[in-house]
């Protein structure tokens, strides 16, 4: 029992790295989810505005999603038992998540490929589902991971789908939705101009209150009932302060700082969850001896070393060109309701294209 709770330095480091990839995913893809949710908020503004909203994340969402794909693969390599138990155990929930993630990718790539209102409206509905559903499902999944599920001696999860939908996990789902929604609204305010920017700031001012209440309730519940250390009170406090700090920030239209505040809050929440989970990776609620821990779910020290070298080679590159990509697309996207200078040129070109095409 003691050996399974006493991981090596390398195992601990890898646990932190897996946490880092999920943290990266939640911070980056979190605002993508939030922006997609806002397709619903601004639905009545019409297809053009919805297109503008989606355009703010157009160039970057794909790279953001890779954080979870690579995170999952790293989990497979570093903690095969965790990977196997988690993904087989949460089968139906994961199935739902995968289906939503699949159609969501198609919504991004295909929405503007056909010039028809019905087509675009349909994909916009998919975008809304693609924003809310994964946020909710990730929340439910992490709620269950940190609270624990029933695991038998074969390391098979025996909790059913209905068992996964317990109050704590559902609250986690709601918190994920609210937090990402707020985060995405901050991002939107940062990336658009004109009326849409004002409205995004106003929406953020409303969203921040339920986020603070639900977030505080969830993190305190976690801290008191499930966390394995009192140290996680520090990130809990950081998350709370960051969210409260966001209130004056969007009132003063300091959008960059407001976005920084939700980034901090999400990062602190992720650190709280993973930090409180350690040294377990999948605690068993029925019999603690069946728990999967950092020590007993990992690969060999050799594999962890090899993968650490690979990670040190590639991760700096990934971070480097990701930052470059964000720099290239750092400018605000203009709303089609208030065309920016040069927009007529584009219209002219499109018209020319149509004429030429009809000739052929």
């Amino acid at each position: 029992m003691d050996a399974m709770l006493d991981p090596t330095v390398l195992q601990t480091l890898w646990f932190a790295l897996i946490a880092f990839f999920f943290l990266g995913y939640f911070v980056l893809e979190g605002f993508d989810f939030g922006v997609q949710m806002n397709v619903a908020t601004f639905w009545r503004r019409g297809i053009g505005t919805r297109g503008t909203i989606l355009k703010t994340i157009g160039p970057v969402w794909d790279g953001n999603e890779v954080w979870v794909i690579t995170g999952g693969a790293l989990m497979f390599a570093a903690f095969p038992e965790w990977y196997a138990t988690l993904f087989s155990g949460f089968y139906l929930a994961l199935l739902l998540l995968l289906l939503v993630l699949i159609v969501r990718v198609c919504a991004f790539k295909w929405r503007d490929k056909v010039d028809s209102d019905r087509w675009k409206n349909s994909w916009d509905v998919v975008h809304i589902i693609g924003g809310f559903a994964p946020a909710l499902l990730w929340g439910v999944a992490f709620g269950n991971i940190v609270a624990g599920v029933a695991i038998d001696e074969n390391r098979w999860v025996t909790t059913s789908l209905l068992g996964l939908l317990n109050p704590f996990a559902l609250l986690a789902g709601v918190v994920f939705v609210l937090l990402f929604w707020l985060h995405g609204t901050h991002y939107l305010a940062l990336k658009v101009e004109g009326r849409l920017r004002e409205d995004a700031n106003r929406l953020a001012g409303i969203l921040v209150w339920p986020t603070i209440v639900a977030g505080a309730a969830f993190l305190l519940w976690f801290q008191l009932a499930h966390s394995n250390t009192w140290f996680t009170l520090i990130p809990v406090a950081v998350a709370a302060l960051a969210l409260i700090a966001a209130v004056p920030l969007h009132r003063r239209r300091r959008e960059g700082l407001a976005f920084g505040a939700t980034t901090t809050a999400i990062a602190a929440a992720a650190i709280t969850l993973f930090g409180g989970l350690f040294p377990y990776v999948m605690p068993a609620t029925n019999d603690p001896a069946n728990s999967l821990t950092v020590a007993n779910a990992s690969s060999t020290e050799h594999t962890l070393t090899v993968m650490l070298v690979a990670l040190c080679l590639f991760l700096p590159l990934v971070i480097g060109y990701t930052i470059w990509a964000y720099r290239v697309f750092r400018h605000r996207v203009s709303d089609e309701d208030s065309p920016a200078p040069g927009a007529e040129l584009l219209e002219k070109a499109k018209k020319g294209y149509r004429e030429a095409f009809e000739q052929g």
Partner: protein
Amino acid sequence: MEALDLARWQFGITTVYHFIFVPLTIGLSLLVAIMQTRAVFSKDPARKDAWTRMTKFFGSMLIVNFGIGIATGIVQEFQFGMNWSEYSRFIGDVFGAPLALEGLAAFFVESVFLGLWIFGWGKMPEKIHLLTIWAVALATTGSAYFIVAANSFMQHPVGATLNPETGRAELDPSQGSLLAVLTNVTTLAAFPHVVSGAWLVAGAFLTGVAAWHMVRHHNRARELGFETEEGQEQHLAARDLYRPTVRFGVVAMCVAAVALVISGDFQAQIMFKQQPMKMASAEALCETETGASFSILSVGGPEAFAQDCEDVTHLIEVLYVTSFLATHTFDATLQGVDDLNAQYKDQFGETATDIHGNEVELDYRPNLFVTYWSFRLMMGLAAFSGILALWTLWVTRGKGENARTTGSKRFQWFAVLAIPMPFFANAAGWVFTEIGRQPWVVHPNPDDPTIRLMTMQGVSSHPGWMVLTSLVAFTLVYGVLAVLWFGMMRRAALKGVPLATRDPETDELDTPTLSFDY
């Protein structure tokens, strides 16, 4: 059906489906990168313009295709854990590494740089923008490398040993570790085969789509009359815009064909050494034979293949060819499936324990009907590409002012018909190699057979209805997406490239731009 069969069907369906789109993405991203390179470095403004427009034309189809490839790839990553958890536990220490490397070294590059390429037109210097599509092309090929390396470990485990305490395969420094996994001879043979297969798909796609428009413009020019200005414009579109792309596609197909034959030959040789059962199943060779023939056509249903092959009649046979494929000699002795089965029963046992602890009778023969026909489909379908390449070269012969185009409807339809054939050939190849490995999920390495796992020992412990739910859900969603994908590809392909118009006053060429981003 049991959970095991359903899980196998699900893996088969999702993987074959994923691999419809993947080869086109791998091949087309490279061909688009080459076209854009020609555009950037052309001195002649007319050529530069033509290649730029071709880049955008095929680029728009690449994006549609990329989307569905990424979407279906997410499932691939997670379904090892979902349906094959015991496999994942057994092999994760080794198998996770190439998957993680694929994410770190290839998939991140692909996704970030695809965004840069799509949205970066006009936002960065021309040559930097060119580099972004090259990054995408190299990364897609890199992805293929890591995935093939992971798959090759299942075909021929190297670089690892079995830990008797945990019963799991573990990377072993004394066996060469990860480096041995990445330089597995099986990988080095399969990777060029997979990538050249992707080039064939993309080459046929390029030729087929461009040929359709070339014929269309040729006929339009003939209707209007070559002497009229409009007719001349149509003629130039056929000759100077589409014909170079048609021929470029043929070049890609030819390069691919050579690489496919060489790598395929290499693969057959090592397959004979590493997985003799698979080689014998390719020919449905039941009895051991010296100087084995290759049959082109056989008669007999799946049941006939499943028994002792007595009811299977080979109609057309080419003598010695199977022996030659396996060893490059005509009189080599090939062990038949039945002898190998007996031999494996000796070596690995008559029964094995499944995940629930039940003893199960073993049959080490794969489904011969599937292996036999998928092997022939894989090679036979290449004939379409061969005919397309030769026919195209003939109808587009000539140089400069004498360069020919054609108005043949028959050619036009054949070119379109030939587009899907390499897709099917790719799918057949994977079906052959994966079904041919059964009943193993990790096939024992003949030199050290300790690392091995049967498919029935790798499956998750799920009730059948649960796997059936996901199988039905994936199939339905994938079906709808396939219809949409096909509709959009067809639409984008039919659109063609907008023709340039000449401003009558200034006599300047005005090239309409194709809007690209989303």
